């Protein structure tokens, strides 16, 4: 190779040593390989060379060109921005702010998801309710001792804060015809306040009306629900109870730390209730159930004081960051 060609390569190498921006690199590239670059010019000079030299020179120039090309291409630009530096990766990440759902909402969502998989459609309704829909329609007449179980807040003579979400079921049955399969989550109110009772709490109730629904369906559906909710086969006690709107009525207890805990009330819908909403009990039967959300949430998270749910202390709430 001609001497001037090999010194050109070392000159290029020198230049690239000082080059530390992309911009400079582009300039250097065009200085050698651009339209008016040195190597390009050498090629055009080739035209004037002697025929005998032409072939040899051409070959050498091509080698030079590809060498220069490779050298430029393989140059790593090291500038301030991309220089490797120490970073303390243990410093806090920026703008991390994880919020939380309320444990009650988380519990409601978990329950509704399971019930949806069983075909229950969510329905909501009013909280300030007419006495009729909260009591009479549900087979709880004025004089009924069962009203003792419902210490009721009144806002007007015949308007009250619903004591259960069953009133939503009555409205739904009146508005839609059987068969139907619904669930009604929401707030309910009772005149009661101590560590285990709150004047406001949350319930979810389910209702399934269809042809040929029997007691074993009630039991099967609810046991499946409980096992799914707790994520394992639970020890369950299914025992007779009493609700004016169901017959037979039952309660489900689960064994928790060696003790039976009541989690759910249920039963076959009382014929009087079906008649009140114009469903013929000779054609249709159904079951209903209801459960308190707070109680399940307390079990699941080990919360011991019901009042915590409504104090809204961030120190409490932020513990449920990852719970969903």
């Amino acid at each position, binding site marked *: 190779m001609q001497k001037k060609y090999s010194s050109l390569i070392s000159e290029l190498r020198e230049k690239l040593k000082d080059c530390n921006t992309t911009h400079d690199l582009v300039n250097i590239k065009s200085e050698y390989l651009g339209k008016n670059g040195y190597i390009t010019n050498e090629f055009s000079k080739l035209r004037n060379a002697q025929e005998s030299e032409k072939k040899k020179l051409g070959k050498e120039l091509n080698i030079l060109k590809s060498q220069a090309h490779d050298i430029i291409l393989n140059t790593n630009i090291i500038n301030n921005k991309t220089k490797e530096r120490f970073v303390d990766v243990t410093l806090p990440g920026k703008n991390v702010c994880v919020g939380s759902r309320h444990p009650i909402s988380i519990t409601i969502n978990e329950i509704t998801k399971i019930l949806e998989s069983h075909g229950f459609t969510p329905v909501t309704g009013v909280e300030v309710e007419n006495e009729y829909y909260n009591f009479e329609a549900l087979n709880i007449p004025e004089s009924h001792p069962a009203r003792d179980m419902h210490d009721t807040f009144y806002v007007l003579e015949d308007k009250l804060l619903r004591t259960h979400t069953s009133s939503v079921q009555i409205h739904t049955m009146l508005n839609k015809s059987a068969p139907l399969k619904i669930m009604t989550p929401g707030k309910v109110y009772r005149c009661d306040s101590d560590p285990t009772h709150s004047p406001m709490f949350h319930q979810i109730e389910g209702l399934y009306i269809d042809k040929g629904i029997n007691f074993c369906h009630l039991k099967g559906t609810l046991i499946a629900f409980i096992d799914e909710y707790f994520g394992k086969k639970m020890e369950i006690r299914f*025992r007779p109870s009493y609700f004016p709107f169901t017959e037979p009525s039952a309660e489900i207890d689960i064994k928790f730390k060696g003790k039976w805990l009541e989690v759910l009330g249920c039963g076959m819908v009382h014929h009087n209730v079906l008649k009140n909403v114009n469903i013929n009990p000779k054609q249709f039967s159904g079951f209903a159930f209801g459960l308190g959300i707070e109680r399940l949430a307390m079990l699941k998270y080990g919360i011991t004081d019901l009042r915590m749910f409504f104090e809204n202390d961030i120190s409490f709430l932020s513990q449920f960051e990852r719970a969903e």
Partner: protein
Amino acid sequence: MKISGNWLKEFIPNIKINDKLTYNLTSLGLEVSSVVKHKGDLIIDIDMTPNRADCLSMLGIARDLSAVYNKKIIFPKIANLKITPSKKFINKIDKKICGSYGALVLHGVDNTIKTPNIIAERLNKCGISKVNFIVDILNYVMIEVGQPMHAFDLDKINRLINVRYAKANEKINALDGVKYTLNKNIPVIADDNKIQAIAGIIGGDYSSINLKTQNVIIESAFFTPTVIRKAAKLFRLQTDASYRFERGVDPCLNNIAAGRVLYLMKKYSNVKNYQYNLTTNKELIKKYNHVINVKYNFFDESLGVQISRNFIKKTFKLLEFNPISYNDKIRLTIPSHRFDIKIEQDLVEEIARVYGYDNFEPALPHNIFKINKDHSIFSENIINGLVSRGFNEIISFSFLPKNSQLSTNSISDIIKIKNPISEDKSELRASMVHSMIRAYKYNVSRQNTNIKIFEIGKIYNFVKPKKIKENNILSGIISGINAENNLKSDQENLSFLDLKGHLQRIIPNITFKPYKNIKHLNKFCQATLYQGKHTIGYCGEISQNLYSEYGINNNLYYFEIFTDSINNVIDTKYKKFSIYPKIKRDLTILVDDKIYVQDIIDIIGEKSFNYMINSKIRDIFYNKKEFGDNIKSITLEFIFQDCNSTLTDNTVNTEMDKILSLIKKHFNAQVRT
């Protein structure tokens, strides 16, 4: 109700008092809440449901158990009670109050006799304290068979007994030491002179018996449950008697109980002679013994299992329903103690209870139901958006303290609770702002000062007198610094624009319009929220008034979204975009400080300049010295792009000139160079 296990052996001989017994009780619906061992006996506490008034006695419980143990019960021994023909002791009985009144009169009783040990012990186990011989016997029989009774000192009764409603302002000094003022809804037992007892609830002090009493009238009556219930509720009085009467006592039981009392009196005391007066409403008793005919297969259909006819028949026999089979049916006469049984569905529960709920095989219904989700139900996406942006969800009481909303709502809007649990929970919230500020304040008092919270809930208003409207609301509040875990140099106080940013991110297509009429927000810093033409809420800084009302000296930014008005459905469609280079141009102008930037952007947007694909605000700053008071410098950025070719500077310059003259014209703007 507390019972003694060993006592049950008198009704069902050889019954084993063990875990199996308590299991069977619960399994029958007589839920055992606790079991205590006591000197070789078990004291079993049962939570009785209100429908099973018949089980408020040893007899009733034994009768239920007999169906499970398949053994007929042994009835307590009863003296043969003869009714004395002349009604010497009973005068007028109000039929509405009392269906049957028995008066067992005993002369020359020695009430100083020691109550027999077996009776005293059993009463003690059942949680009834000793009083004196006669009263103990009456209490014993009440626990044994379920009939509450009352003993009057005959010598303190002037002539005849009447059962009637009290007159207004009649008074009685009752056994609990309280003087009750009565009214016309209160049933009483009275003689010619005075009120001697509140019927079925509590006796009077005057005619009560003591150790010196020798002659007694023992009342064994049936009182109408609703009448007793109303009266007991009025006085908030619950006695062993009222508890049973208001749930209902077997109307045919009073003679049996009187016979049992007489038997025990004869056995344990010197009593020989008696008189028994009785007034009974036969029509009422008849109503209690109704008949239900039911098909055998109704049981199978309702319960989902095959239940043998034999089992059904045997069960009803032991429960004393006098079953008679015919064709494919069974005829049942409902006994007077089971007045809770009204329709055939009730009979299904009887069979299910005795069969054992645990013995039913769980089954899932086969029909498939499609979930029919209401699209108006508020989107979880928006809530999750808030959570992922660091908001904590709270749930507050729907109640607020008395008169706590007067700064935000007119008094006629506010719904008051007629029977509040306390003054601080005596009205329903008419807006969410108080709930939010209270939650904020609570947290500040607990040293949490960086707050981002939200709540989904209802507000309640009177829209007309007696017409109530409930609205679903999502509201929230932010205060403090943006991210408390950031290094100090990266922290900032939250501002209105933080709140706005959150809302823009979580609610599709939201726009903000300046506003000033929301009372509880700072009138210089509030906006209404829109989606298209629909108002969906508002937001802004809390007003000066509320800050002072709550004693807050930090900035609070509040929002409220009407969740029923919001549209969650985002209709995403692909739009073609240009591949030719974009040209960016900045323009810096000086305008009056009161001019809303959005107005400038909107006017430019309306005109639609050629090739302009976007315009936005880049920067704002003030410099009094250079620009003067109330003047701000705004830098706007415009982006131009053509779909079909590369734009030239000239084309863009032409458009920029047009934009500039438009801004100059509308906003009296000057170009800053």
